[in-house]
């Protein structure tokens, strides 16, 4: 009897989990489906789920009207560059806070996080003016800098929580073995923190890939990443749902593939080092 009750519970939670998963995934699925519809079918009411006239003409139009590869390359440079630079700054910062904390370390961490609580639009005007004066508007350098700075607090926080789990003894052993600080970081801390570094890197790549506020405001064409590419289909000639969906599908495809292959690392990253 007990076994049957457990079986039923397992079945119910399995169905529940699939349902929740489907609900969360549904918007993405709908977007992909819509991208294969004609513009007319895209906002037909009632909407058709699978039985419509499948077409790839949206993709063709999108490709024709704007240069996907150009934007995708920009996205790669901006997301990759800002993430790598953020890691290079964050590793030593998190190392010093995790292994030689002072009385103020906790305050510094909180202060860094507090910068993320401020709505970015609050500093849009000053940043815009600074970027304009330094000639950084619509430049890859400018976007790499702003996204790197924006995500730095999160990167440092994540690395800090991972580093805290590494026994200090091992770093001290390296020091006794004659390793300088740089070599201690390269040969001992970094390899031990690989899982944490990998999930931080992935999560940050995704955040930077999808970042829309700064990329939309600080770039127009030259440096514009995929977010700008998507946005160009929601204005100004009116909404074209099917083409917008096709553009969005194209934009998220690379990151979706990346996420799929690194699920395990990502789960670790999203739980912020809470599970070992």
């Amino acid at each position, binding site marked *: 009897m007990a076994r049957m009750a457990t079986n039923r519970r397992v079945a119910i939670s399995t169905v529940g989990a699939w349902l929740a998963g489907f609900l969360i995934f549904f918007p993405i699925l709908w977007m992909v489906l819509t991208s294969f519809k004609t513009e007319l079918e895209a906002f037909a009411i009632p909407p058709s789920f699978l039985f419509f006239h499948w077409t790839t003409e949206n993709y063709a139009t999108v490709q024709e009207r704007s240069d996907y590869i150009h934007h995708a390359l920009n996205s790669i440079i901006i997301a990759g560059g800002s993430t790598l630079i953020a890691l290079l700054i964050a590793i030593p910062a998190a190392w010093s806070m995790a292994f030689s904390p002072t009385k103020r370390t906790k305050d510094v961490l909180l202060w860094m996080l507090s910068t993320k609580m401020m709505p970015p639009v609050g500093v849009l005007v000053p940043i815009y003016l600074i970027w304009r004066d330094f000639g950084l508007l619509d430049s890859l350098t400018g976007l790499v800098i702003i996204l790197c700075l924006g995500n730095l607090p999160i990167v440092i926080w994540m690395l800090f929580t991972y580093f805290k789990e590494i026994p200090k003894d*091992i770093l001290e052993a390296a*020091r006794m*073995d004659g390793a300088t600080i740089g070599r201690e970081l390269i040969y001992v801390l970094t*390899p*031990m923190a690989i899982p944490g570094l990998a999930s931080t890197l992935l999560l940050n790549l995704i955040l930077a890939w999808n970042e829309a506020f700064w990329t939309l405001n600080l770039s127009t064409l030259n440096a514009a990443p995929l977010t700008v590419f998507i946005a160009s289909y929601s204005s100004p000639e009116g909404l074209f749902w099917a083409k917008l969906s096709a553009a969005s599908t194209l934009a998220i495809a690379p990151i979706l593939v990346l996420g799929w292959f690194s699920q395990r690392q990502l789960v670790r990253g999203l739980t912020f080092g809470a599970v070992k």
Partner: protein
Amino acid sequence: MGQITLQDVQKSFGPVHIIKGANLDISDGSFVVFVGPSGCGKTTLLRLIAGLEDVTGGSILIDGKNVVDVPPAKRGLSMVFQSYALYPHMSVRGNIAFGLKMAGLPKAEINRKVEAAAATLNLTPYLDRKPRELSGGQRQRVAIGRAIVREPKAFLFDEPLSNLDAALRVQMRLEVTRLQKQLATTAIYVTHDQVEAMTMADKIVVLNAGRIEQYGTPLELYEKPANLFVAGFIGSPKMNFVNGAAAAKYGAATIGVRPEHLRIARDGEGWPGKIAVAEHLGSDTFLYVDAGALGTLTARHVGELDLSAGDDIVLSPDPSRIHRFDKDGNALRS
């Protein structure tokens, strides 16, 4: 060479004064053990010598050179940690070789040295395993291998055997002592196990609340403890202390008699008492005796004694083995 001298070494963590002026002279090639109760500052003192903590005051000389401003990597010492602190991502070979790699030795020489160290420590079959695939005793040996391969000026050990089971501990104790004698390298060894201290040390440093209470050979500490603390700390079972009139008779505020220096008799001169507990180990007999105003006394007899709880006996101290202390607890020498 590995001569280490401490001159008035002080350490505070914020407002808390942990090491209160340590002076010590450790000669080259000797095996020195720091003992003391938990929290007395043994680890802290060792880490100060290693350079893993900065001194608040005083100086540390290695071969006559003050090293207080020298980083740990440059002091030429090696350390074995209580937690072993092996590099988990490196094989045994990588762990042992790391220090040599940092020193920039050629590959062939590194390999030769690593293999020699592994052979000494019976680690050869495990060279390509990761630390997590080793037993506690094997990990301990890797940690020791990592320390010896660099031919340091001195070894620093922080309770290296405390995570091993009793039998393995005795075996490793012998191995460490033998290795140290063979290499003739200075060693500083922290433990709170006084049997380890007595058996391994050339000289023992007894620490208490951040002060060095006494520095001497194991037998000096046993025979001539400088004060009540050392007298009570060294020796097992613990020394008996007697105050009041019985002590005044010997011209002291307190006298101390070790359990093995109490003669046990059914009657006669001495301190009468009633046996509370009798422990028969075959090789030894331990008696815990309720001696009225003198309190509970412990007596040890080598061999078997036909006595049991409830028996009335008389304990008489061996007059030549009585330790006398003044009212501040310092030893009185006649």
